[in-house]
């Protein structure tokens, strides 16, 4: 189970980071426009993200200083982000989205995700 969680989180981080870099402009534009006109999409996404975060945290809540901490933190981050997407009013959420989709910050998160994903996959020993 631990190995499976590590592999899935690692591959997911790599996939999403790669497409964040490749489709940077389009993703940023559609996130900002979507925030203006489609609040309900973010609301729905918040529920999914909350479920995924709760799944990770309930099955894998390891607090020790090694690669396992990354997965625990990602799970807690998903819970916090899910609650934010569900609970925040539109104006707050628009501020968060505008702040976090600035070019430099967006690229930094994508690179961090790529490095963390690759690190997790190296830790599992076999990537597939």
């Amino acid at each position, binding site marked *: *189970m631990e*190995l*499976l969680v590590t*592999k*899935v989180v690692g*591959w*997911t981080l790599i*996939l*999403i980071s790669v*497409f964040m870099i*490749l*489709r940077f402009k*389009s*993703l940023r*534009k*559609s*996130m900002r*426009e*979507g925030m203006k*006109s*489609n609040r309900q*999409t973010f609301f*729905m*996404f918040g529920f*999914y993200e909350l479920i*995924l975060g709760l799944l990770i945290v309930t099955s894998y809540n390891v607090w020790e200083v090694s690669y396992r901490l990354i997965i625990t933190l990602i799970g807690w981050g998903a819970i916090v982000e899910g609650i934010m997407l569900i609970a925040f009013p539109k104006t707050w959420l628009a501020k968060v989205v505008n702040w976090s989709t600035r070019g430099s910050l967006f690229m930094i998160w994508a690179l961090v995700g790529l490095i963390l994903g690759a690190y997790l996959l190296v830790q599992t*020993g*076999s*990537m*597939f």
Partner: protein
Amino acid sequence: MGFRQTKKSYPRFLIFLNSVKIYNEIDMESSIFLAKVMGWYLVITSVVLLLRYKTLRREINVFIKGQNAIMIFFFGAFTSIIGLLVVLNHNIWTNDYRVIITIMGWLALIKGVAYLAFPWGWFVGIVNWANKHWWYVIWAIIGFIVGAYVLNQAAPFF
């Protein structure tokens, strides 16, 4: 999850080559679980498709005109997570019902990556091509048959 290194002579990154053989012997439990989930999913969605394809078709047309591109990114992320969960847990290539689960996992992964990668224009083209009523009926029938077959093979009495 069943990754046991039996021969040290393999390079570590090629371990998936012998994991296929090991899976066939020990890992029936996850096959049966995934077969139940996917079989019921296929049966339920096929019936819903057959009953409500007109509404679904209309709603998809509305969605395509609405320029709600961020929805596609979200669906892409979640579909690829589901695909990765199935593929990394269950990558069995045999000639019985288990290979259907593997193929469905790979299809989910490919679809998720396509959602993440394709520009909105391509997506509109694909949906306009696929959004025909006979297409829905054909896929619903295929899905029902495959789902019922998988369920019957894996768990005849649930």
